[in-house]
């Protein structure tokens, strides 16, 4: 590859990295506002709590009740708090996806599949935390902090990696196609 082409690719990647940083900074600036707390976090966390309750009901835990950000029964309950809502890894996934070079068409599958997959994983996380707290209360803190937090961040990273693998293989196939 010619050095000038390499340099220009480097410029595009540097621009993508700067775009990623700017999007992340914007997200965190917004996350510290009252508007975010009262509208975005509150709405997303309430919906997550409700859907996690529905998931538990589907699994036969009919005594689980949802009240705002609290999910629980007479035996155990969990409260979805800011920072434990799963929004940050989701925001970082979106920022990486939007900032990386590529058309919207190429990114659409990641938006349509990756975002619902991460939201679903978060529901599973909340429901599983309730079950762990119910049956193994001594393990609750470990599973919440040591296991799920890291796993969820790596799941977001994995979603981006799978999209990147798919997108670059499409690109390679397109490049090899002589037509």
């Amino acid at each position, binding site marked *: *590859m010619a050095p*000038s*082409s*390499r340099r*220009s*690719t*480097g*410029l*595009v*990647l540097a621009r*993508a990295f700067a775009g990623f940083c700017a999007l992340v900074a914007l997200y*965190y*600036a917004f996350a*510290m506002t009252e508007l975010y707390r009262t509208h975005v976090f509150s709405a997303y966390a309430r919906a997550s709590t409700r859907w996690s309750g529905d998931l538990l009901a589907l699994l036969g835990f009919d005594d689980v009740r949802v009240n705002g950000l609290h999910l629980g029964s007479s035996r155990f309950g969990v409260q979805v708090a800011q*920072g434990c809502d799963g929004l*940050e890894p989701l925001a*970082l996934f979106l920022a990486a996806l939007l900032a*990386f*070079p*590529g*058309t919207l068409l*190429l990114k659409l599958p990641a938006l349509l599949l990756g975002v619902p997959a991460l939201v679903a994983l978060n529901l599973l996380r909340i429901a599983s935390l309730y079950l762990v707290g119910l049956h193994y209360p001594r393990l609750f*803190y*470990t599973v919440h*902090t*040591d*296991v799920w*937090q*890291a*796993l969820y*961040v*790596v*799941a977001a*990273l*994995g979603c981006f*990696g*799978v999209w*990147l*693998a*798919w*997108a*670059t*293989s*499409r*690109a*390679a196939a*397109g*490049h090899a*196609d002589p037509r």
Partner: protein
Amino acid sequence: MRQPVTQIRASQVAAFVVRFALLYALLMAPWPGSVEAYGALYRGLVQLCTVSIDPERSVRVYDAARGRQLGPASMDTGIQHRVPPERGYGDRAVADSLRSSRHTGYMPTAMLLSLVLATPLPWRRRLRAAAGGFLLITAFVAFMPAWQILPWFDPEKDHLFLRLLPSLRPAWGALLDGLCELSLWMTPYYLAPIPIWLFASVRRDEWLALGDRMLDRGRRAGLRRLRPPGAA
């Protein structure tokens, strides 16, 4: 000549996630003495980073778990901050904060090492990346408490950097306040390993090769916005 790793397959990503989970579980397992050993290292490093924040104040990092059984959420490290009485802070002359060395130190380190060692690269590169990454994450982990205690125990929100650069105060004060607030969340500890892992593991030519693949698709489809600046 060394060849850049450019081909990523979805199966490789899946295998990476599984390898990461196994390594992370292995490192986070409650090995006897690991919490105490890492805690001692952590306190030494934090003390090193906080001791010179301000010569008029003293910061003492101590073992807050001495003599008690450590649980998973144990706040085993205390940071005591003392200002001289003539500074007039009244009852805030001594302040204490507690933190868990496991969650603010060991966990991000384990996460980084798992990410690096799970990456499908030649072992020599993995080990080199693990060593470099370990140094970077340790610097981050040791620096965070110093960053946090700057405004916590200072009623005037008198950031050290702003004292050095007073002309920046109005514009940067809010930004630094925001960063200090952000540093109190747990998420920086989960997110910091990722950029450090990418920086330590992926070479520049691999980024470029990856970018070229994406750009080739854009060129073929005739999409202008994918063309690098100056490309024909």
